[in-house]
């Protein structure tokens, strides 16, 4: 199997001297083309920190992140921005939408950043909103939507530019079980191709079934990997039953 993303020996700490706390203590992670990779672990174990580092948002103190054979943390700021725009679709834990812009405008933002024409962008955004079951809310300002609806807007924004690495931080936390499953299954079905990967941080055991591999994090370290329906050497041979945490 070929790796799309490889993080090696990632160390990240915050603060200095006495207040120095390690969020990541030497993490190695590989994501392969065509897989859905889950990262699970208790609160504060460093999941969001790790996602931010591998997606080029937060600079690690040590270690390298190689994406498609390029060391992203050697890039210049603007080059890195371009990398994020073209390769990463990030759903933030707290969405970070623009509350007073309409749902459609929010979803269009990556397209505007890609210099796509206004009307064409809105049209594409609407398509993904329909997919997310939000077609009827397309012209509402985002702050009028419920938490779960906002989460789906954030997902639509992450996938609208069809990036090859989708990174979701707790994408179903505010959704009911059925909607969560529907969305993840849609994403997997329609967006997971042989040249993409999907990395999801979650506590939500209801969606574990969609994972190929699950990485367990604890206290800034990766503890174990569970293969679900995916084998990094061959393909889909070992099936491991997961215990809900």
């Amino acid at each position, binding site marked *: 199997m070929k790796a799309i993303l490889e993080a090696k020996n990632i160390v990240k700490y915050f603060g200095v001297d006495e207040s120095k706390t390690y969020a990541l203590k030497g993490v190695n992670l590989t994501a392969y083309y065509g897989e859905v990779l889950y990262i699970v672990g208790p609160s504060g174990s460093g999941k*969001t*920190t790790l996602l*931010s580092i591998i997606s080029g*948002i*937060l600079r690690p103190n040590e270690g390298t992140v190689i994406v498609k054979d390029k060391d992203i943390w050697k890039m210049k*700021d*603007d080059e890195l*921005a*371009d*990398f*994020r*725009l*073209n390769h*990463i679709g*990030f759903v*933030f*834990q*707290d969405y*970070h*939408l*623009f509350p*007073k*812009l309409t749902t459609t*405008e929010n979803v*269009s*933002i*990556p*397209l*505007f*950043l890609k*210099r*796509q*024409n*206004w009307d064409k*962008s809105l049209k594409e955004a609407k398509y993904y909103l329909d997919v997310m079951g939000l077609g009827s809310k397309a012209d509402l300002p985002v702050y009028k939507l419920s938490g779960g609806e906002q989460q789906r807007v954030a997902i639509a*924004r992450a996938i609208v530019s069809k990036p090859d690495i989708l990174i979701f931080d707790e994408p179903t936390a505010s959704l009911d079980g059925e909607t969560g499953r529907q969305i993840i299954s849609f994403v997997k079905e329609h967006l997971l191709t042989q040249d993409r990967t999907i990395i999801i941080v979650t506590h939500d055991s209801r969606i574990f079934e969609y994972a190929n591999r699950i990485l367990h994090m604890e206290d800034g370290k990766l503890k174990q990997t569970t293969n679900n329906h995916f084998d990094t050497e061959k393909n889909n041979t070992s099936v491991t039953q997961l215990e809900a945490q």
Partner: protein
Amino acid sequence: MKGLLKIALKLLANDRGKFFTLILGVTFAVFLMNQMTSMFAGIMRKSTSNVINIGAKMWVMDPSVENDRSSIPLPDYVLDYVRSIKGVAMAVPIYFGSGLVKLPDGTYQGANIIGLDDTTLFGRPPIIKGNLNKIYNSDAFIGIVDSDYRKIGSPGIGSVLSINDHRAVIVALAKPTSGGLFGTPTLYTTYTRATKDLPQTRYSMSYILLNPKSNADIPYIQEQVKKLGYKALTQKEFEKTIENFYKYKTGMGTNIMIMTLISFIVGLSIAGQTFYAFVLENLEKFGALKAIGAKKYELMSMILFQASVTSFIGYGFGIMFSSLIIAFSKARIPNYAAIVTYQNMLIAFLMVVVIAGFSSYIGIRKVLKIEPFDVFRG
């Protein structure tokens, strides 16, 4: 990029309160600046009113003259000398003085008395009523109907006044191009009568008015007059000299400059601070944009665009309000001195550009520094 700028605009306009405060700040600053500089321009124009009204192409005077009201009388031979300079089409004397007009209630009012060359009446104001030729009648004067004329009771044609205890009859009324700064009424008469009726020093000629044959002759004339120890200024040069006098040798210029500066600083701080608050409030959004993949110059352009839009709207309102107020005041207050000049509008515009630039600068600095990760974690 258009899409991003549109988003920038929406972010700005969605925050109604801040948007309004921003525009108000700039409007206020532009209003004050334009008011100040217009007032200054108005005062400057009024200070040169005699030179404008008389309209001679060139003026010959003592080299130490700094403004038209403190003339230093010239000996008669200067006139003969000037007339003999090659390139001089005509040269005539003019008398600037002042007299006391006795009012019917027994009080006195000072007035400017201008004596025009008897034969040519060169420098005469445009007559609106009466007959100019009657100026040669005995005791004849021309009344200048400006905002100060009512101070001597707005005498009509045929009215008899007493100036320095001499009889004076108004034979014609004239309208000046520009009103004076000092609030004194003006009367015109002939050179001969003026020098006879009013107190005299050894010499009586205040200035020599001169028209050159062509503009090309001006440098030669100036050179020749200088050789004699006097100076010949063109109308523009004389206006500039007078303006410089009020600007730099009285407190007027400095005071107005300080006021303009203060209004600029007030505008700058209101606009700068509000804009900074706006950026701080939207920091999370700029952080999200950054995380998604906005490049430095895209963020910069968005902020610069937001600052420019508010500044230019504010500029428009500021100029509009101050022009309206000036027009309104002029209609109501006869002596109100303020004119909106293109130069003033340009100055206000440049100051607005500085305000926009400064506001953007502090916003951009903040936005470029943020780490999206920090913003997200609160």
